[in-house]
């Protein structure tokens, strides 16, 4: 990988911990037992991909004081909207425009944005301005420039018209049609028609007056029902006793089989020699790619295609999917935690409780050290960002925890001594326990006496006031138990890692994608005190101490990607 590595952090939503055994309870998270590795969170496990989120993806419930991820919110739809209201190109996914077939589509003209004016005369086609695909390539053109969806539903590729399900239904009711023999060409039975015919046939069978007593109502009871009849259903379904169950027998007796296309019976035609010849002559270029086929909605207008859908001339314009705007509720307390403006044009939210406003963010930066390792070494400036990590050579990373809330938080970190997986890098959190000051606003800050603040800072750092006052840089020592640097509402600490060697014994499978990335699983516990029964935490910084305070705690796993280990 030539590209520089950007450090990252992911958070595991606590909801992924479905097993009742709570890995949080008991034991100090700051010192995970070495033999406890199997219980420690392994970010490399395939399942981890499903529970890890960047902080920006997470929400927060103020009432439950819990992180909420996309998997553990209840969604409600605020608005449906259409991003485009037309069709996508089946070849390149570009938008399709209605153009006149007569005036040959001029690529320059199509690309021009002012070509949106309606084309002059019919017939019309859908044309892609990116790849120049046009619906005439699949034999589809339209009489009118509007109502394309309705016209398309009546057209097969190649231009033959079909009856929609509704038209078939009306024709079925028509006495003049009923007198005629059923259509001899069963191949006319496209998917939608076969489905509709079957449905009508079954409905007719079930509504037969001869079997009315054992008709629809009873069957309805069988299909979906209360648990009380569950065992009955089971015995019918699993007992192989359909034929011995009197009721079932009568019910089934009500149904005969479909006997002709009009009832939905469609005899297959197996001769595909024409399609094979076509494949032989057109080769790969005549076929659609897997991606193009995946983009196609189910084809309702053709009889079963059985492999013919591979040909480019069976592709159809793809109607745009509707989208939704959704509000999100906490599934436990039902409070709304996110609600967008219903107007489609705006991307604003009325309510949006993002987790980033409640839990500390973690940013990661590598430190370059002048010499040596361990305590006492001083910094010589930042390392080359994104450079590969040297195996077996200690590297130091600065983790900066920024506190978004208006209370001082106490942060406790726990990380396994070695990273899980095939390559065990050693990890040492130099300062696993520290406090981060509240996110008081700048105005508050300015009111404070600078000197007093200075003194307070030193006190918190555990430094004596008389110690050297030469400025913050002198505190930058790699010292166990000491923070690296502190700001208004942030604290930096140092993590030392000794990257593992990526050398593999012969016979071992090679590195998987991203297996060279050094990822540190880290358990984060955040504790703070907040006003009780505060309607809105964080609405204003608390000033009155008279109110009762309650202890709050949030704990979760996260994973820190610090760099790639150099491969040899």
């Amino acid at each position: 990988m030539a590209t520089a590595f950007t450090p990252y952090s992911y958070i595991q939503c606590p909801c992924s911990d479905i097993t009742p055994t709570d890995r949080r309870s008991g034991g100090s998270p700051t010192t995970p037992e070495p033999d406890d590795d199997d219980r420690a969170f392994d970010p490399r496990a395939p399942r981890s991909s499903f529970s890890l989120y960047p902080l920006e993806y997470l929400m927060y419930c103020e009432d439950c004081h819990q992180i909420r991820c996309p998997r553990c919110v209840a969604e409600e739809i605020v608005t449906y909207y259409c991003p485009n209201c037309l069709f996508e190109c089946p070849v390149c996914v570009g938008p399709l425009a209605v153009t006149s077939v007569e005036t040959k589509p001029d690529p320059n003209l199509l690309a021009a944005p002012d070509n949106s004016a309606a084309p002059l005369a019919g017939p019309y086609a859908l044309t892609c301005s990116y790849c120049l695909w046009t619906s005439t390539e699949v034999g589809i053109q339209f009489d009118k420039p509007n109502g394309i969806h309705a016209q398309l539903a009546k057209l097969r590729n190649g231009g033959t018209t079909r009856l929609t399900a509704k038209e078939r239904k009306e024709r079925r009711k028509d006495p003049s049609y009923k007198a005629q023999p059923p259509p001899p060409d069963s191949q006319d039975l496209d998917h939608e028609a076969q489905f509709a015919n079957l449905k009508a046939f079954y409905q007719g069978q079930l509504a037969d007056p001869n079997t009315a007593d054992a008709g629809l109502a009873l069957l309805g009871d069988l299909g979906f029902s209360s648990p009380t009849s569950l065992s009955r259903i089971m015995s019918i379904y699993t007992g192989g006793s359909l034929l011995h169950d009197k009721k079932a027998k009568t019910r089934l007796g009500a149904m005969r089989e479909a006997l002709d296309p009009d009832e939905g019976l469609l005899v297959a035609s197996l001769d595909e020699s024409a399609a094979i010849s076509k494949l032989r002559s057109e080769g790969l270029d005549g076929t659609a790619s897997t991606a193009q086929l995946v983009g196609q909605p189910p084809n309702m207008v053709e009889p079963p295609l059985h492999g013919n859908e591979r040909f480019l001339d069976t592709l159809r314009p793809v109607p745009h999917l509707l989208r939704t705007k959704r509000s999100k509720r906490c599934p436990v307390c039902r409070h709304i935690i996110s609600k967008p403006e219903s107007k489609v044009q705006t991307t604003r939210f009325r309510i949006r409780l993002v987790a980033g406003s409640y839990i500390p963010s973690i940013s990661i930066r590598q430190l370059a050290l002048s010499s040596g390792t361990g305590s006492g070494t001083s910094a010589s400036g930042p390392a080359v960002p994104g450079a590969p990590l040297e195996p077996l050579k200690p590297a130091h990373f600065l983790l900066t925890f920024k506190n978004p809330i208006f209370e001082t938080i106490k942060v406790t970190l726990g990380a396994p001594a070695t990273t899980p997986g095939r390559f065990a890098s050693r990890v040492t959190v130099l300062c696993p326990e520290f406090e981060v000051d509240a996110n008081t606003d700048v105005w508050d800050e300015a009111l404070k006496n600078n000197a007093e603040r200075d003194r307070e800072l030193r006190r918190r750092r555990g430094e004596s006031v008389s110690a050297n006052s030469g400025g913050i840089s002198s505190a930058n020592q790699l010292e166990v138990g000491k923070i690296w640097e502190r700001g208004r509402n942030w604290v930096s600490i140092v993590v030392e890692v000794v990257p593992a060697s990526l050398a593999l014994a012969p016979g071992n499978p090679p590195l998987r994608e991203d297996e060279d990335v050094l990822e540190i699983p880290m358990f984060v516990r955040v504790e703070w005190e907040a006003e009780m029964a505060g309607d809105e935490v964080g609405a204003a910084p608390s000033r009155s101490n008279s109110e009762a305070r309650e202890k709050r705690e949030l704990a979760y796993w996260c994973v820190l990607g610090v760099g790639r280990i150099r491969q040899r």
Partner: protein
Amino acid sequence: MSTSSTSSAPLPHRSVANIRTPSGAGQSGPSTPLRNISSSFSSPSSLRADDEIIIIEFGTRKLQVGFSGDAAPRGTIWFGPDQLRRAGDFRDWQLGYRYDWRSAAAGGSWARDYELWRYDVRSVDLGLVGDKVERALRDAFTKYMLIDSRPRRMVWVLPSSLPIPLLSAALDSVFTRFQPPTVSLLSSPLALAVGAGVRSALVVDLGWSETVVTSIYEYREVAAKRSIRGGRMLVEQTHNLLAKHLPQSAEGDADSQEHVLSFEECSDITSRLVWCKPHPTTGQEEEDAATRSATVRIPLTSWLSPTTLELPFDDLSEPCETAFFDTQYTLTSFDDDELPLHLLVYRSLLQLPLDVRATCMSRIIFTGGCSAVLGLRKRILDELSHLIQQRGWDPVRGKAVEKLLTNPKLQRPPAAARRSHNNPETAPPAQENVGEERDGVWHDHDHSAAPAASYMEPEPDPIEEQLKRGSGSGSGSGSDQRTSVRGELRVIESVGAWSGASLATHLKTMAVATIDREVWLQHGATGASKPSEVDHKVQRQSLGPGGLMRGSAAGGAWTLGVWGSV
């Protein structure tokens, strides 16, 4: 755009038809592209969306999801490596990013990342299966179904050969994450029969993991036979064909590396170009030299360096020959779980009682991804009728027959006895019986075995009798003259398992196995059917009548339908 003109106008968006009007009354259509209906959602969202039943068809490589009553699913979610990524990982969209398939393949997952599960549950992370199902459904619900999180009843359409731990893992995940009040299970062969308008059928599922031939009689699965020949094997064979034509020198030690091309590329080429040759005695059009020598250019990007192969078109039928027919071997040389497809279908019919066979053979339904291989369905049917011509319905066959007939000591023990120890997961009971049929009468050799339903005297068909009596057959007035076809080979089309399930659910006709959420969470999670406690060896329970009986004989309050009990 405005589409209000015709009332029969199909809805302009493929996802909107049933959003508000689930019972198919959506004639009005959306009059404007933007529909703010937030007011109708102001009710507490804990209410069930009672009117909407979601139908989900599970396949090994995809999920199809939609609403009951619809003719087709709203959307299909395919499984792939991109679904295994963390949220916010957009590398698949980055310019120049290429999935590192080689390292994945070296780890043994060349094709695996494109599958939801493998039937050999010993190698499956069941929790991961649950996660994958959850993520796929979430995508489908948001992208194609446009539904909120209210609990909805579900109908699952599943292959009846699905091992219980996989089903259990999926149920665990969905009941926990989506809270459907009930999940009803419908076997896909049954749904296919409903979707074809028949009560009996021989369903030939040319699937991804395996090919399964299921005999349905009177809406009941009476027998199933499977062969490991399926889509996965076909793509492997395509890979081998392409690899054979790559320059060996550049690849270096070609033997040491198992896969030299990515699964994605091989799968793509398989579905686009691989075809099936006709049966030698039929339909061999005399081709001129030009068509014979037709070649196909295949650009390959996943090889060490991009290259273009030029293959004879005929070579592209090789993967199909090897994967499905293996004609260079004699038919007696195959194990039961690797039968060539025509033999599999033949034996499936052979094991059926005369009456059932006559009905099923005229209701053959091909389904599954490989039924899209051009020429394959006809080839199987031609091979099958060839076999029937050659052998009739005499089950005793092969070069060992004479020895067997003359020396009873050489007679192999019944299949059941042979495999009961090492491989109990295959072999439906029905095929274990060695029966034969003479003069149109079925003789059961194995009298000790419990009478399996498929060998019982065929009951008089109440429906046929009803029809014979002419006692009103419902809709058509002229239907009395029509009789159902039996005893001749005939292939019919089904609207598909998903659509069949949609019909069955919508019309409330089928008895399906319904699982209540509360019951599942109480017993499914802690009872014997908890995935981790399941003895994996007994997971591939047969579909034969014995298997079905076992389910009800367990005495429990409920089971998992044809998926058996544990």
